[in-house]
């Protein structure tokens, strides 16, 4: 159906359509965006599932990501081995979660992982401190940063264990309706 393309088999495209929020044309467009980052590394024929990984430097240089203070964490969360180097699958997954069709719970889950710098399934005070510094370009004094983090934990920690779990984070997201429109990258 539609244009004949030789990049993916029909079955691969169907699988991508079922697993992401993108249509066929968008998947092909994203593939070309991925390939444009390194045309010599990415083959034009994916039907034999080549194991191609693009290094983080190329991903982080995309115009949609290059000025985002959290680009490194985003790439790490969505990459296969947590090092920021992404295969095409990871690339599609990332933009699918960040698209406007992804539901709130899915976005909240990945946002939690992005803010969880030490990957311990909790957003603890040190994670929050790193977040504050990224958001304000390290311009606050350490005392101010510490104060803000304590306030955040006080407000959002429902089970009083001194750190935010995924449930606390989701509870907060439900009360912040802007989240759906801000946690969104148009590609």
């Amino acid at each position, binding site marked *: *159906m*539609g244009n004949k393309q030789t990049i993916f088999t029909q079955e691969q495209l169907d*699988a991508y*359509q*079922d*697993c*992401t*929020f993108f*249509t*066929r*044309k*968008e998947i092909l467009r994203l593939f070309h965006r991925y390939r444009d980052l390194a045309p010599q590394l990415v083959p034009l024929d994916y039907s034999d599932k080549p194991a191609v990984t693009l290094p983080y430097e190329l991903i982080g240089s995309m115009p949609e990501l290059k*000025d*985002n*203070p*959290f680009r490194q964490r985003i790439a790490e969360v969505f990459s*296969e081995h947590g090092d920021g180097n992404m295969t095409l*699958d*990871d690339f*599609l997954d990332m933009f*699918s979660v*960040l698209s406007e069709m992804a*539901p709130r*719970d*899915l976005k909240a*889950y*990945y946002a939690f992982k992005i*803010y969880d710098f030490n990957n311990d399934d909790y*957003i603890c005070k040190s994670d*929050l401190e790193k*977040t*504050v510094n990224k*958001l*304000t*370009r390290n*311009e*606050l004094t350490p005392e*101010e940063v510490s*104060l*803000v983090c304590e*306030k*955040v934990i006080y*407000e*959002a920690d*429902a*089970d009083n264990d001194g750190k935010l779990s995924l449930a606390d*984070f989701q509870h*907060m*997201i439900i*009360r*912040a*309706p*802007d*989240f*759906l*429109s*801000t*946690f969104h*990258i*148009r590609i």
Partner: protein
Amino acid sequence: FCFLHGFDAEGDLVGSLASMSTNERIKAIQKMPETMGKKREIRNKVLKEITKKSRHRGGQPSCCTQCLQGAAVSFRRFGNTLSEHFHQLRIWHKTLKIIGAEFGTSVLSYFVFLKWLLNFNLFSFLINFSFITIPQFLAAEPNNLSFTGLELFTGAGYFQQTVLYYGFYTNATISKVENGPSYNMQLAYIFTVGIYFVICFLILLFSMAKFFSRNFVNPQTFSVNASRLLCTWDFNITNEKAVKLKQKNLHTQIKEGLTEVNKEVLDFSAMEIVLRIAIHLFAWAASLGIAVAACTGVYFLSINNLELFMKGHRNDLESQSAMLVLPVVVSLLNTLIPFFFSWLGHLERFQTPGQHIYVTIIRNIILKMSIVGILCYYWLNIVAASESQCWETLVGQDIYRLVLVDFIFCLLGSFFGEFLRRIIGTTVWVSLGLPEFDIGRNVLDLIYAQTLTWIGILFSPLLPGIQMIAFFIVFFVKKVSLMRNCQPPRKVWRTAQMMTSFIFLLFCPSFLGVLSVIGVTVWRLKPSEECGPFRGLSSMYAAVSEWIQILESFTASKWVVWIYHNLISSELFFFILSTFVLIVTYIYCEIIRGRKTMTKLLQKQLNN
């Protein structure tokens, strides 16, 4: 969420997915928070499970089932391709991306709202043009008037005898071929307009409900610091300067948040409380007084306007330009009085900036809607009862002029408010800086323009087309002005709640007001004797009742007559419907209240 611990959990997951329908299954797989590889694996397992199940059910699937399955798959693929082509039509995707990248989601929401309103006008123009105008072209009378350039501004003159206005449309049944298929213009006119408004009503109702359910947040439970830190970073912004600016703003806000006195615990002495209340009362009295004064001025000016019409169709420059006085005055009032309101708002000291914004928006809406209201009163009570030849066309011309002048003032507002302000802010008075894009004022202008268009549909069927062109131009002008002259907003706008309020404002005073005006026109007013599709009838609605009477004589259409008598024109049916709606609403309110109590109890348990 289903975290896959262990093989059994995965087996259960595959089983439950396999038993869902195709759409549900795809949605469930898309929502899973796993990597692509894992999702693909699960999907393949589920598909294998489905084929295994169908094989177990009845040996080899018959040719028929295989055909059906193949047909279902190709149908789904066809549906996907179709929706893809619709997506391709997403106009301005790149432009919206650039705007969102530099200015953030709040400014972007204005442009998205504008694009959404454009759809309403496009839809109306298409159905009016196809069902009313094109048949009219087949039965058109020749136009004897001459075209001077001034018609574009006044809408009178040459345009009076064109399809632009109600008065030109015939009341006859059009048929090209003798005894061939005929087209009843009266029914076409009333049904096209009626069905358009019903569809708009449903679209607005569903959009509003969707926004309310998604975005309504109890302000008491809003945790300012946490959400400011973790939920409001705008990932849309991809411009380096904009990112730096946003980081600076966040830095300022956090600093302010740390050092401010806790605003809720301000102790006022009794004297100060009385003073504050007195100032608030004075401000409200002043704003309502100004609104009333503006309405009175508009009313007397429009009565004066009518005398100008009645004096005759003198096509000289003076009388033509005199017709423009009313729209210019209305637009001036709509532009200048809001500045007075925002000055009043600075005079009163509100407890939060959010309150200031909402109060200003409410005052502006009261002003704009009362001006529209007084104009409608003038049109429906005075113009309709006047001795003019074709009052509907007069009303249509008035609305055309209002729409046009409002459009011109919108462009001028952009010029003065943004371009000149930037020049002043960067050269003469540097402390002012670059202007910010005033989202509230611009959205209210859009709502006002759309209200005028909706009122005008009945009197000037092609008006939505004109408004569509106007909106197109406004989009580009605003975009260029934004990019060249404005800086990204400094304060954090609660975008989602704002958009909910704007859609609510579009629905509640604007659309419902339009429906009541149209209702009064169709049911109560007497159409003019000499022009338009409803000439000679006692009301526009009489066309439908006469049609029903004709249908009664045909046995094949008895069901239509039955529906009409028992459902549409019977009061008992509406009474039962309203009671039912009230009961359902009450039950929902009780459920929501119960859930809130549950949440509070669970919260208490968690904290202990």
